[in-house]
Structures are given as structure tokens and as C-alpha cells.
């Protein structure tokens, strides 16, 4: 993790705050565990108090008061409007296309925002590193109206070709999602510790549209395993406000870990 020496916040804090800011109040958000969950819970204490959080464990409209360690944490169940079965979560809530935003992490991502959470290495049968696998991610990536991905930007994570497509972003570019009969709109942004990438409206290739304060574009290029496209209108993310930093720190401090 890179540390921004010129600022009073960590890169992870910036990433989490930037991700939280993208969530609209009143939206439904299907949340993956880890930083996506931290960002989504943070958003509820910021601009999106009525963000409707759903986790694959079946917790519906949950308002956790501390960070869950896992997707099925008691904290999520105890503060949920209701808890439903997993068939209901996957078939009625997710597959039906009614979720606004899916919020995912990843181990690897490529320029079309295809995601790998299955293995690192050459072959499925003899992986170098075996990762947990799909969980809910494949169908979250397929079905939500849009998908946001949170991932630290390094040449290990931002790769020319993912070793395995666990969850499709834009496949090989325009047309791939339709060909694969994916219901949702696909990735709308990738939030990293260096900035934000958005798909080019025409090519769908991830394009750096924001750099976080104190990050320069060479840093982003160096940490990307493909020839990074940069927006001609490259902007700087608004620096974290003191209140945002207080909220993210308070939240992270609740973690049991």
C-alpha cells in the first residue's frame, strides 16, 4: 500500500472516501466484503444515509454500527430490516436487475474491468496462488445496473490479462456483455488508492479520470500493467474533508480485528 507522505491521510483512507462519495442516497447497493463494505457503510454516514445495503448472506437494508469482519457477520443481521434466504437474495433481488450498484473488490483487473478472484498462475488445475473464487461476484457483476470496483493499483493487480475471468466487466470490449447476455450495465468506475478510472464511452477501456491529491500521473502509469489511457480532462479528487476522515477512522476503529 502506498502512503501519501504529503498528506494527513493514508491512500487507503482516500480510496475508501472516494468510493463512498460515489454512492447515491436512496440507491440499493449490493456489497462485497472488505473495503467495498467499509466504503458503503461510510457512505451512509456521509451523503447517503438512506443507502440500501444488501449483502449476499441475506441481510437486507442493514445499518451496521461497526465494520463486519465477514459477509455473514452477526452485526449485519442484527441491524438489518430483514434477513432473507440466499435463493431470495440471488434470484429475486440480484438476478431480477433491481440493484442499482454492485460494489466489488478484486485480486486482478484488466483494462476492460474484467475481474479475477479465482487464482493467480498459469492453469486452473495447478494455480500458483489459489484465491477464494466467485462467491456472489460473478452475478453481481452481471446483474447490477452498474458496478463499482475498489482495488489498490499496482502492476500485480492492474494486469494486461487477468489469469482467469471470474466476473466479467466489458469482456473484450463493446458487444461482449450483450453477447454474454449480461443484464446490467457493467463497471461504471474503478476506485484505487491512486485515483479513479472510468470506461471510455466508446471503447469501454478503463481511462484514468481522477488522480487523488498528491498522486501524479506517472505514478498511475507505472502502477498499471497495460498502457494506461488517461482522460484529456484528468481531474484531481477533492481532498478528504476532516469530517470524512473522522468518520472513516471511527468506522475502521470499530473493526474487531
Amino acid at each position, binding site marked *: 500500500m502506498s502512503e501519501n507522505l504529503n498528506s494527513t491521510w493514508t491512500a487507503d483512507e482516500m480510496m475508501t472516501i472516494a468510493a463512498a462519495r460515489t454512492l447515491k442516497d436512496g440507491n440499493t447497493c449490493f456489497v462485497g*466484503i472488505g473495503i467495498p463494505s467499509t466504503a458503503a457503510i461510510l457512505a451512509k454516514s456521509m451523503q447517503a444515509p438512506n443507502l440500501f445495503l444488501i449483502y*449476499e*448472506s*441475506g*441481510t437486507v437494508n442493514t445499518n451496521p454500527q461497526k465494520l463486519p*469482519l*465477514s*459477509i*455473514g*457477520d*452477526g452485526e*449485519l*443481521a*442484527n441491524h*438489518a430490516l*430483514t*434477513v*432473507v*434466504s*440466499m*435463493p431470495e437474495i*440471488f*434470484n429475486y433481488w*440480484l*438476478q431480477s436487475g433491481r440493484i442499482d450498484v454492485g460494489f466489488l473488490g478484486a485480486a486482478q483487473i484488466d483494462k476492460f474491468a474484467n475481474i479475477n478472484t*479465482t487464482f493467480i498462475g498459469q492453469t*486452473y488445475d*495447478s*494455480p500458483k496462488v*489459489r*484465491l*477464494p*473464487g*466467485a*462467491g*456472489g*461476484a*460473478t*452475478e453481481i*457483476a*452481471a*446483474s447490477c445496473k452498474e458496478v463499482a470496483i475498489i482495488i489498490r493499483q499496482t502492476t500485480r493487480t492492474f494486469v494486461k490479462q487477468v489469469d*482467469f*475471468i*471470474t*466476473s*466479467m466487466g466489458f*469482456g473484450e470490449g463493446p458487444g*461482449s*456483455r450483450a453477447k*454474454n*447476455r*449480461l*443484464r446490467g450495465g457493467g463497471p461504471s468506475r474503478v476506485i484505487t488508492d491512486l485515483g479513479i478510472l472510468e470506461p471510455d464511452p466508446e471503447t469501454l477501456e478503463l481511462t484514468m479520470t481522477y488522480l487523488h491529491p498528491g498522486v501524479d500521473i506517472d505514478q498511475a502509469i507505472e502502477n498499471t500493467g497495460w498502457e494506461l489511457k488517461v482522460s484529456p480532462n484528468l481531474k484531481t479528487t477533492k481532498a478528504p474533508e476532516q469530517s470524512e476522515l473522522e468518520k472513516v477512522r471511527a468506522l475502521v476503529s470499530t473493526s*474487531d*480485528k
Partner: protein
Amino acid sequence: MVSKFLELPQAIESYVKSGDLIAMEGFTHLIPFAAGHEIIRQKVKDLTAVRLTPDLIYDQMIGAGCIKKLIFSWGGNPGVGSLHRFRDAYQNGWPNKIEIEEHTHAGLTNRYVAGASGIGFAVLKGYSGSDLGEHTKNVSEVKSPFSDEVLTAVAAINPDVTILHAQQADKAGNVMMWGITGVAKEAVFAASKVIVTVEEVVEKFSPKFSSMIIPSNLIDAISVVPNGAWPSYASDFYERDNNQYIAWDEISKEREIFSKWLDDEIYSKSTAGKK
């Protein structure tokens, strides 16, 4: 109390056989650890073991040599990292080689739905765009008879035995669970035999939010095992012992340390949850 109340060793002995297709469900919550430990103790072998999230329970059973094939959809130590015993078995064949069949949560969930429904397959939109389909059995496609729509089909899964942990049984042998129930209901209906461990037996259930009652005629054996889900949690009884999940990372990393844990914590102890 009706005769289906059995001590856990007797329940496992009566209903779990080497070679069975076994489902032990509980999504983070209510994971039937005590039952898993008893299966290890009874040296059951060659299980085909299905579970959305193998978690520590299957990592332990894999390390102990109970499992020959794992069917799953997310294989990690939730909130911590990897399942080392699973990786050692899968990548290095210790203590035995295991075969895997990997799904998405949505896909495996619907395999249970089809199994519970007594039909050979279920339809969904799933796996599309993922490389997973190429490596996974029991996933295919069907064309709609009404339109051009093509849906994913997943084959039903019907365990020989499903094992769950729940909060309460009543004296008539009905079981009530609440909080996160995951695919518990589907795993019960899909199975030939069902064993449930419970925290306690009550005179009468009282209403709970997000609760589910499993009628006694779906259950073959009930064992009263307080703390039977430890180190996972049982809502309104105890919280998840996150330190144990973290400690597992160290215990499971090396074969020697794991083997000692197996001797000390499983083989040399009798049944019942911790504490």
C-alpha cells in the same frame, strides 16, 4: 422427547457413511463445527462435501482426510485469508488429493433449490461471462420454449445427508433457527437424511424476526450440543470467535502444527462444543 434426539456420536454414526455426499451448511452463522469434529473423530472417509463456503469446518475435515471431493462457491477463511489445508490437499495431495467442483453462490444456491424441488435442474442467469463455466460440471444451458432467451441450467444437488446447527428444538423434534439462514431450508429439503445440532431444547418456540421452523418430519436426528457452532456464531447465544478464525491461519499453515491440533483438540476430546 421423541426418539430422534440422539447423542451426537450416535447421530453421526447412524446417518453419515464414508463415501456419502454430505452438505454442512450455515453461512458464517450456525456452522455445525461440533458435528464436523465428530465426523473427523469417527474417521469417516471419501466424502463428497458440498458447502457454499468451505470455511474452517471443511478445511479441518480436509486436513483430517475425510473429504475426497469439494463442491463449493467461495473457499476462503472469511475476513482472514486462505484455507491452507484445502490448498495443501488440492495443490499437493496432502493428506489425500481432492477433486474440486467450483460454482458461483447463485449457481450452487440454485443447485440446492432444484434438489429441494425434486427436479433435475434449475434455471437462472448465471456464470455468464465467467471462465468458471469451462471448468465446472453440472452447469449447462437451456433455451426458452417461449422466446429466444437462453438461460443457464444447473443440475440439482441431493445430499445423502445434510447437517445443520440451529438455535432451538422443541420436545416434538421441530427446530427453529433465526438470523442468517442462507440455504439451510434448501439443504434440508434436498437431502435424504438430516441431522441438526441445537443449542437448547425449549418447551415452546417464541416468535423471532427472520426465523424459520424445520418440521420434525424432515429431520432424522437432533443432538443437543451447546456451543455446537463455535467458533462461528449462534445469533442470540454467542458471537463469532474471530480470534479463533485468525488463529486458524497459523494452526493450519503447517502440517505438523495442524496434526498436533487434530490430536489435541479433536481426537483426544469427546464431542460437544467448546467451553
